[in-house]
């Protein structure tokens, strides 16, 4: 389709997409081919980078490079899973509220607003402390169910502006059900928005995971970029000058979110050309 051709001409989209795919492949292929366990204590505390330990060791004497790649994988899984959940809830609520209007909209809008005004970190911390063992998927789930309101809002606005379109009226006059109309007449028109919202949700989930894990509320017994930072913080990596324990995970978080944001900007320029000055 011509949209895809246009996207492939956007340097921002290409850079973001290329970078993300590269990170994704690294995160998933390396752990599949290397048998190294990121939790193995293979050296002493804070050994600087060397030919044996590319990025040195952390406070437990674990290989930072191995941890980094596994952490990247965990963070991406949490991000994608949370993004999927947030997007699924957000579009369902947003599409319904916008298309139905009236009471349905008022109720759904109130729910959305309640979720919007409660600081997500508060909910996150409450939920996380009440779950004993936190797997990657529970983390993703928790982040997903606290971050959908943003998508719901954006989708609601779009759906509201589409509901009085003539093709929607024609579909109604053909006797189509509400569900059919939402899925066939409204959703395809906002697919690009949905995809863009998904990308932003993934990026913000990765950032939130890092934040929460730094507070020590991250996934249990699993390395993520956030837990690496948490350990570095807890065991005085900064004070000891062990930059290799905290700079690499910070950089990787920045790289992943940068790749997603720039992909989003590229898509935005392609889908909303009027915004380009």
């Amino acid at each position, binding site marked *: 389709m011509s949209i895809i051709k246009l996207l492939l001409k956007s340097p921002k989209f290409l850079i973001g997409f290329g970078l993300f795919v590269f990170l994704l492949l690294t995160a998933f292929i390396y752990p599949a081919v290397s048998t190294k366990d990121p939790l193995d204590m293979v050296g002493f505390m804070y050994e600087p980078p060397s030919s044996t330990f590319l990025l040195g060791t952390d406070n437990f004497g674990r290989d930072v490079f191995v941890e980094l790649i596994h952490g990247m994988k965990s963070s991406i899984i949490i991000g994608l899973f949370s993004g999927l959940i947030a997007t699924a809830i957000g579009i369902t609520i947003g599409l319904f509220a916008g298309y139905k209007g009236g009471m349905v909209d008022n109720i759904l809008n109130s729910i959305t607003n309640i979720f919007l005004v409660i600081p997500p970190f508060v909910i996150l911390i409450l939920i996380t402390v009440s779950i004993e063992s936190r797997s990657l998927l529970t983390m993703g789930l928790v982040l997903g169910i606290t971050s959908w309101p943003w998508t719901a809002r954006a989708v609601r606005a779009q759906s509201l502006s589409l509901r009085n*379109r*003539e*093709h929607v*009226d*024609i*579909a*109604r*006059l*053909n*006797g*189509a059900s509400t569900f059919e109309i939402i899925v*066939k*007449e409204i959703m*395809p*028109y906002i697919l690009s928005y949905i995809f863009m919202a998904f990308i932003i949700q993934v990026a913000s989930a990765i950032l939130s995971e890092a934040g929460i894990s730094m507070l020590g509320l991250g996934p249990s017994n699993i390395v993520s970029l956030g837990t690496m930072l948490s350990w570095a913080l807890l065991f005085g990596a900064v004070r000891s000058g062990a930059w290799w324990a905290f700079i690499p995970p910070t950089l990787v978080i920045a790289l992943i979110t940068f790749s997603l944001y720039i992909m989003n900007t590229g898509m935005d320029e392609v889908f909303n050309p009027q915004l380009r000055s």
Partner: protein
Amino acid sequence: MAQNTEEIIRVENLTKVFGSGKKAVKAVNKINFSIKRGEIVSLVGQSGSGKTTVTRLILRLLKETEGKIIFEGKDVTNIKSEEKKEYWKKVQAIFQDPYASFNIFSPVKKVLLDTFKLFNSSYSKKEKEKLICETLESVNLRPEEVVDKYPFELSGGQRQRIMIARAHLIRPQLLLADEPTSMIDANLRSGILELLLSLRDTDGCTIMFVTHDLGLAYYVSDRIFIMHEGEIVEEGSANKIITAPEHPYTKQLIKDVPKLSEEWLTS
């Protein structure tokens, strides 16, 4: 002009207010009118006068703020989903924008096939396609040239013909045509118009024609309703409206159609 005196639809005190408080817009304000079976009437008014809102209210695509709609003697103001389907077998529409009337993601035959949903019909796929082809031929389109195309591959005129075919497939009692030619190239308008008006003869359909063009309304209709700022300020036979307008707004409209005022006011 074949028509009898049986009333097909009547609206009473129909009112629609959008929004509330300071931002409230009274799009339609206590209008009353009645249309007889077999008539062609025009609803004439400038942009923003509330014509489309009236159309959508009659179609029950929009909830009224106040008032009643009586169709074939039955109050249809509060009909619900299944009754609406019954209603839409009898009351249909063609809209102004032949581009926006199509879902850009579906091939053209989809919008025609979907009309069968109204009928819980036992037609086989083959029979449906045959009916669609015949109907497309009746609006002077070659079925094989359009059915599998996507809307963006067709011209505005072709699209509007497909919308007429859609109405023809449903064979409604009442067809609301909301500015069906205003976005069509001028040289194609009369063709589309003729096709539309022919539905009265082929399907026995009553037509409410919505337009901002008084000249066009005079040309196509038996009676004209003049709408201004949400109200119907004058109604009468097409001749009476043009030759003996009473309301100042109608007089103003006639002045704005130079040819009409020359041809009809002087004769």
